């Protein structure tokens, strides 16, 4: 651990490389986290199947590329197909748990995540899949800092998607309906908004965002059937830190998490990277709770 730290000091360029690469990964977390924030805010559901939606999006791009599609075209394709998948999941399961205790939704989506994982394993195999977008990479500072172009693209797309989502929620009719439903479903219903349709659209939109994230993940990194849960947890963390209705916060928290995680992986050793992510989440929740409780606890 200490030698890793001294490495960072010895080669400042490496620190930059680690942080920059972390930021780029963070963009993918942010993309998946938008979706989670949306579903959480509107449907009041903690969507544990989030990570699996990302993985599915990756597989769609992977399969499309096998059939000769250009990897970059796989992105809109993944998003479009995943919108449909999200809609189906909503119609099949989610709508039954929307009004129920939030723990029920956690368990139900957990079940869905096992189901999707296992189906993905049966259909696509447990092999690690990856798509080569053949975009090359840029490097500077004597080659010490390298950024794959596909990661840069992922970053820009994630930021773009965030901006588009923000605009959509503010300007588009459906976006406004989504916001109205999030604030008060009953009032929205009285105003003639078909909340069920809004829920379905929101969930579909979430799946589409995840699909895009997965498509980028398969181009920039690798995917396999069992990598969903860490994505779910990261999304959850980002939303917990940023708050449900805060697109800008989600971007910032996502990027921050990516950078922090990458630095931690570098310093503590990669074997503790995942442990770090999860422990960090527990700490954030404990801290949040302490902060809330501190108000009235000085004497006890």
């Amino acid at each position, binding site marked *: 651990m200490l030698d890793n730290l001294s490495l960072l000091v010895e080669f400042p360029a490496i620190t930059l490389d680690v942080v920059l690469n972390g930021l780029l990964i963070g963009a993918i977390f942010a993309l998946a986290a938008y979706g989670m924030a949306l579903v959480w805010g509107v449907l009041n559901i903690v969507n544990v199947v989030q990570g699996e939606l990302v993985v599915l999006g990756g597989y769609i791009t992977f399969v499309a590329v096998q059939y000769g599609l250009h990897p970059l075209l796989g992105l809109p394709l993944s998003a479009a197909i995943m919108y449909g998948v999200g809609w189906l999941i909503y119609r099949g399961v989610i709508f039954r748990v929307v009004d129920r*205790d939030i723990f029920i939704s956690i368990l139900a989506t957990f079940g869905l995540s*096992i189901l999707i994982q296992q189906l993905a394993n*049966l259909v696509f195999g447990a092999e690690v899949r990856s798509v080569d977008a053949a975009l090359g990479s840029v490097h500077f500072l004597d080659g010490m800092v390298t950024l794959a172009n596909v990661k840069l693209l992922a970053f820009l797309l994630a930021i773009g998607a965030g901006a588009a989502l923000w605009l959509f929620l503010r300007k588009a009719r459906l976006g406004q309906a989504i916001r109205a439903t999030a604030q008060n479903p009953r009032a929205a219903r009285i105003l003639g908004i078909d909340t069920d349709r809004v829920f379905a659209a929101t969930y579909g939109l979430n799946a589409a965002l995840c699909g895009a994230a997965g498509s980028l993940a398969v181009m920039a990194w690798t995917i396999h059937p069992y990598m969903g849960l860490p994505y779910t*947890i990261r999304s959850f963390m980002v939303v917990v830190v940023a708050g449900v209705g805060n697109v800008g916060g989600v971007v910032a928290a996502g990027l921050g998490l990516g950078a922090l995680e990458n630095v931690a992986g570098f310093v503590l050793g990669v*074997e503790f990277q995942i442990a770090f992510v999860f422990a960090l*989440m527990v700490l954030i*929740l404990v801290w949040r*709770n302490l902060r809330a409780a501190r108000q009235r606890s000085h004497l006890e």
Partner: protein
Amino acid sequence: MSRLSDWHIAALLALTGIAGPLLLPALVTQFAFLWLMIVFAVTWDILGGRMGYNSFGNIVFFGIGCYAAAVIQRDMGLPYFEGLALGLVVGTGLAVLAAALLGSALLGIRGHYFAIATLGLTVASGEIAAGWNYVGAGSGMALPLYPGALGERELFFSYSLFAVAACCFLLCRWLYSTRFGLALNAIRDDHDKADAMGLRTTPIKIFAWCIAAFFLALSGGLAANMIGFIDPRDVAFAGATFGVWMVLMAILGGKGTLWGPVLGAVVFHITQEIFWTWLLGWQRVALGALIVIIVVFFPQGIMGWWAERRARREAA
């Protein structure tokens, strides 16, 4: 449920526990796992069903029990049973301590934040164990071989786990009959109200978790020896299997009821075995589907469904 059938189940289970392994020697290990599942479901229900704290983190105490036993048995140079006994003592001690410490940090978190926080706790524990060389890191740890005669080992663990499950159940049953049980229910029904009525909710919650931790660690030390090998993520801190199953079994049977978790564990274990035997390769898909179906359509569990049906019949 009437008193009579209460005794029926108890007698049936006791009979199965004592005579089952002798009558059906081929199923000894199945029985042992059944008792383990019952411990899982009953201890989960202390928090999840009675206190309204849905935890995905209870498996952490099981893992502590596994590792404590393995380390003591490896390092202390004691004969098998002495090592196992000391391992169980140390394991339960550590687990209770961990429950007290983690509890004071985590049990203030409410609702789904608590559920997700405990999920994080489970994964983090598994990963830390998997990175820690002292406990074998990712290679896991092998436990010493049982010294007794062929077949005796399985009987030993089956009976030990049965004893643990029985003690656990009886203790919980007694706890729920005291004011402590009422206090747990009060916290579940309205935590703020319980605070406003002056209940000492924090110690109550921590104590409840400590009890769960005690039995989980006890069964963990035994199960680790029975399985013979512990892997950090797949055996000790197996959040995605044992950790979720305990929730599922309690819900399937009916959480917050006396017999629900036990019933849920029995039904779930048998169903699992059917899946494994007949759905080669598809059993996990079936499990996922089962979770969704149970949670979406039977959130009140078998006992809840039973009570509803009886209430409807009485009304008619």
